[in-house]
């Protein structure tokens, strides 16, 4: 018997299609009868879409000077 807790733990696998047929049917049936879990799954779906649209970037001061120096050296060697 599938419980809300199972759905919470397997939400990503369910959305990404990474579950066995048996598990998927079990969760689908639970979703049919459980409105809070339907809402939860919809929220996870919205979260994924939102992050995809926002595209947050990795922070951190990446110092490009050493790379530029190495590239110049490389270019000189090739000349």
């Amino acid at each position, binding site marked *: 018997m599938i*419980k*809300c*807790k*199972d759905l*919470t*733990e397997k*939400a*990503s*696998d369910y959305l*990404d299609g*990474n579950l066995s047929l048996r598990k998927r049917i079990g969760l689908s049936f639970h979703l049919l009868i*459980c*409105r*809070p*879990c339907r*809402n*939860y799954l*919809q*929220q*996870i779906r*919205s*979260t*994924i*879409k*939102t*992050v*995809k*649209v*926002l*595209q*947050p970037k*990795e*922070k*951190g001061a*990446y*110092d490009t000077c*050493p*790379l530029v120096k*190495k*590239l110049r050296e*490389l270019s000189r060697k090739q000349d």
Partner: protein
Amino acid sequence: MISVARAIVGEAFADEVVQDAWISAIKALPKFEGRSSLKTWLLHIVSNGAKSRVRRENRMISLDDGWQSVSSDKFDNTGHRIDEILPWEEATPEALLANEQLQAAIEETFQKLPSLQRAALTMYDMEGLKMEEVCNILDISASNARVLLHRARTCLHQCIDKFQDK
């Protein structure tokens, strides 16, 4: 690239690994056959460099990153939810991101994710790489990658959900 390097080798050596990866990529560019996208190829180069660095530094990759799942007090002792979950009022990305404070909060949460979670999320959800590629690049099993991805999504979901209560 920096995200993958940080996930594998950690903050201290990530910059250096990315620099070396660029140099290797430029040198190897004539040999690039286009069997994968340039992006995936570059990520493989940085991943290989980071893995060698890990071996040199004898560093262990750990998935135990202080993860806390959805609080167990949200469920009764049979595993069913106690609280009602209501649909978000603003459910589309555009509507959610119209709130600048929420946008900043999502970005902050993203930055605070453990580096492996951030890398898995970046490659799978944002860059659209296949799970198999994500596993190869990060050198982790598919089950571990799925756990990382789910943890990252759950953290971001909790961040957005807090704003719905306000």
